[in-house]
């Protein structure tokens, strides 16, 4: 499959057409979507019409944008005017948002063409897409295994070469973990770099939208398009989008990179070996590798599973059957709310709503939610201390390669542990990238993770690019 960079270049130059690129994408989807269950919604005709419009604009000599004619898939928790948006939940089945997420507007302005919405764990709660109300997505590299989650559909779309790039959201690892399991690049940007306006919230203080791509340059290109201040998101960073593509080839010469024990401890031996090999590759490219221990990272998971559910319990209160989505009738409003929520939410969502409600309750707040906030502060301080010593951190993205369906569904804690290395970044509001490096069990790809402080995306892309080159892929 051609990269987004190549497609946009050729479409703009008239060497290819958006329509041809879209047809290629649609036929790749047709070939495997029934098998893999990647898309919840595909707008074939709409996408082709938009593609032809791009071609007309090119023909008129207009500047169509950085992603001219590039097919792109959206995680189904992003609002797009008139397009069914479910967040993987029955409770939103049939709902069509009357407005566009900021990210959708930016993507459309860049000339890219949104052709569909991808499967996900319900309300982004999960690490395998097994929590989707619409059936799991299968890993294109081995359909007996999960693609990771919660943005499993968007990761699979790119891995199956259905679209060169896609959009996900990352609350505790939901971009990086599926990127690792599907053998592609996934970025969790600095909190506030990408507007959350129009992203169906799971945990507002942790959620961040980011790109999936086959390679580092495409990921940087897409992030440049979707980043930048948005007055509709109060937590949006004040500055315009940073320049990223221009720094992809900057290398790591002189960069100090900390290899953090807590970010690979407990991982499969293949994964540990890949992380060590990545450290070696970065050293060879001129980085200074320093072994570090950040014990606070071990506290991240517990804090995350209080803060995330607490915010979710409030964010998901609006799904009550009164205004939109599912309504299960009953004798009065309270009974209707209850019946709707009982029928509309899946088990994991209910579990987290209960956890979060409990953690915020009078008498328990201090011991649970309050304590978790203190841990979050510790985490922020721990990162800040680490970044006194080094420029970036290195570790694994996940403890294992893609796992089999059903292997963790009966044990929520085992599932939660898939995100143990990715969660600290969300708690701190920092940036991180997962890039494929080496292989593990059954020849499946391993993802290594590079972590940086807020606004360090350019350096992260440069370091990830070094690994990409050393790892042998494009």
């Amino acid at each position: 499959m051609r990269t987004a960079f190549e497609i946009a270049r050729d479409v703009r130059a008239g060497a290819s057409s958006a329509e041809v690129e879209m047809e290629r994408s649609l036929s790749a989807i047709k070939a495997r979507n029934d098998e893999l269950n990647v898309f919840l919604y595909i707008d074939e005709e709409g996408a082709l019409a938009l593609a032809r419009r791009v071609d007309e604009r090119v023909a008129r000599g207009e500047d169509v944008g950085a992603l001219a004619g590039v097919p792109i898939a959206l995680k189904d928790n992003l609002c797009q005017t008139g397009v069914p948006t479910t967040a993987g939940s029955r409770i939103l089945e049939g709902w069509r948002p009357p407005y566009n997420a900021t990210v959708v507007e930016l993507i459309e302005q860049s000339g890219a063409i949104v052709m569909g919405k991808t499967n996900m764990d319900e309300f982004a709660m999960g690490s395998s897409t097994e929590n989707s109300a619409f059936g799991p997505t299968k890993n294109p590299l081995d359909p007996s295994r999960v693609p990771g989650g919660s943005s499993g559909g968007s990761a699979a779309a790119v891995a199956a070469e259905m679209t060169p790039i896609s959009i996900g959201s990352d609350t505790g690892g939901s971009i990086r973990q599926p990127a690792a399991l599907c053998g592609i690049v996934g970025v969790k940007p600095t909190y506030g770099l990408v507007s959350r306006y129009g992203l169906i919230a799971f945990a507002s203080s942790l959620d961040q939208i980011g790109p999936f791509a086959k390679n580092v340059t495409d990921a940087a290109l897409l992030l440049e398009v979707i980043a930048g201040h948005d007055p509709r998101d109060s937590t949006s960073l004040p500055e315009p989008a940073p320049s990223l593509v221009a720094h992809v080839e900057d290398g790591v010469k002189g960069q100090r990179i900390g290899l953090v024990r807590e970010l690979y401890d407990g991982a499969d031996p293949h994964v540990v070996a890949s992380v060590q090999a990545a450290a070696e590759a970065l050293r060879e490219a001129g980085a200074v590798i320093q072994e570090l221990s950040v014990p606070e990272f071990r506290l991240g998971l517990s804090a995350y599973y209080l803060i995330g559910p607490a915010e979710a319990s409030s964010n998901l209160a609006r799904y009550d059957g009164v205004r939109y989505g599912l309504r299960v009738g009953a004798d009065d409003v309270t009974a209707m709310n209850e019946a709707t929520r009982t029928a509309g939410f899946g088990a994991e969502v209910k579990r987290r709503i209960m956890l979060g409600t409990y953690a915020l309750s009078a008498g328990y707040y201090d011991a649970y939610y309050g304590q978790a906030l203190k841990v979050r502060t510790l985490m922020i301080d721990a990162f800040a201390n680490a970044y006194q010593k080094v420029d970036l951190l290195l570790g694994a993205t996940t403890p294992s390669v893609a796992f089999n369906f059903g292997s963790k569904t009966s044990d929520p804690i085992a599932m939660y542990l898939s995100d143990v290395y990715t969660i600290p970044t969300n708690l701190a509001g920092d940036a991180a990238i997962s890039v494929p490096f080496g292989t593990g069990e059954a020849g499946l790809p391993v993802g290594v993770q590079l972590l940086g402080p807020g606004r360090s995306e350019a350096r992260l892309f440069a370091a990830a690019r070094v690994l990409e080159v050393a790892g042998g892929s494009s």
Partner: protein
Amino acid sequence: MTMPEGWEMVVGLEVHTELKTTTKMFCGCANAFGAEPNTNVCPVCLGLPGSLPVLNRRAVDLAMAIGFALHSKVGFSTFHRKNYFYPDMPKNFQISQYDLPINSGGYLDLPDGTRVSIERAHLEEDTGKTTHLGGSGRIHGADRSLVDYNRSGVPLVEIVSGPDIRSSAQARAYVSELRGILIASGASDGRMEEGSVRVDANVSVRRAGEPYGTRCEIKNLNSLRSLQRAIDYEALRQVELLESGRAVRQETRHWDEDSGETSTMRVKEEAEDYRYFREPDLVDLVPDEAWKEGVAGSLGALPAERRARLRSRLADPSSAQLDALDVVIDLGFDDLVITAINDNIDGALALARAVNELAAAESVELLTPEAFVETLAMEQRGELSATQAKTVLGELLAHGGDPRAIAAAKGFEQLTAGSLAATVDSLIAEHPDEWARYREGDDKLAQFFIGLVMKSTSGQADGKAVVAELRARR
């Protein structure tokens, strides 16, 4: 009402005021009363999935103005979510302020010299409005419920007094004075009947010197009269309970204007658990010194000060005039009255025209101070009768314009002081006998001369002015 011997009532008031902003608190929808249901709505104030709040700067201006007027500590504050389910609350949480309100502490001095402490005056968003149809007419057991979200997200300030109020009359004076402040600061139109100002009363009773008793919260107080009646009823109810050896149960009670009674709305077995936590979609509200000074500096004179200023310009006012003075302050006509007094208009006349003609008008926007003063001067000089002056004012209020031109157009003959004097002189000359008897003290003959003047001026003269002319010649 006086309390039964040995008993004291303790009252604290929560006053909610809608802020007079152009747009809502967190979105650009119009903040307007009386529009077609669900027309002033958007994804944000409907709480649609993915929408995010952005704080209205003007709402903060007005909230701070209230704080400065109440001598509060104004500054750094944060927003929290107050979580509970109700169908007219689209997110099933209300964005409010909790432990760090924008205004904390303060006091309000009442005209009788007493002082009521202010605990806080915080910002929050209003809910929509539900109408229950058929069946019970309440949320449970109604046939149908209709929700109008036009009010959803309208900015509110909740002003919480200390438990310092000791009589229903004092409670009334507090709300009345507070309304004056809200109107004067431009924060609210102060209309209780439209729900712009809503009052909840916390009432308890105790024997003198004892600790506070159990309190009940009374809702649905839509006028100053209801407030006063409800507090009296409730205090007596509690005294009767206690005197008969029963206990007051902590509960929320509903005031019924028709029956003149309060009744149980819901019992507070334990404090409701709203699971307050920091609103993660908003950032800290940190008004800098320049912003605060700007607001404080633009705050005009407050009612107490304005009342004293106008009072000092009235010579020996009657109690009716003192009542009129309160109305004039409330309606903001005091500057107009003082301008007139400065231009040698009699204070009583200016007050009377303001409290009658101006107060009755829908708007005084078209009436310039110059036109007001000129009309009154013409009346005072006898160029217009009282009836004519009122007609001219009515015309000025409705259409604006020049009082002389209006008087001329209406055919009110220009009866200048000079021409009245000349008329009186010539009539005296024509009736020497009657004049002699008048000069000797027969006041009845004043009527004779008034009749002559009226006849010769076709009723345009002012009786009082004629008497003044006659007296001047006696």
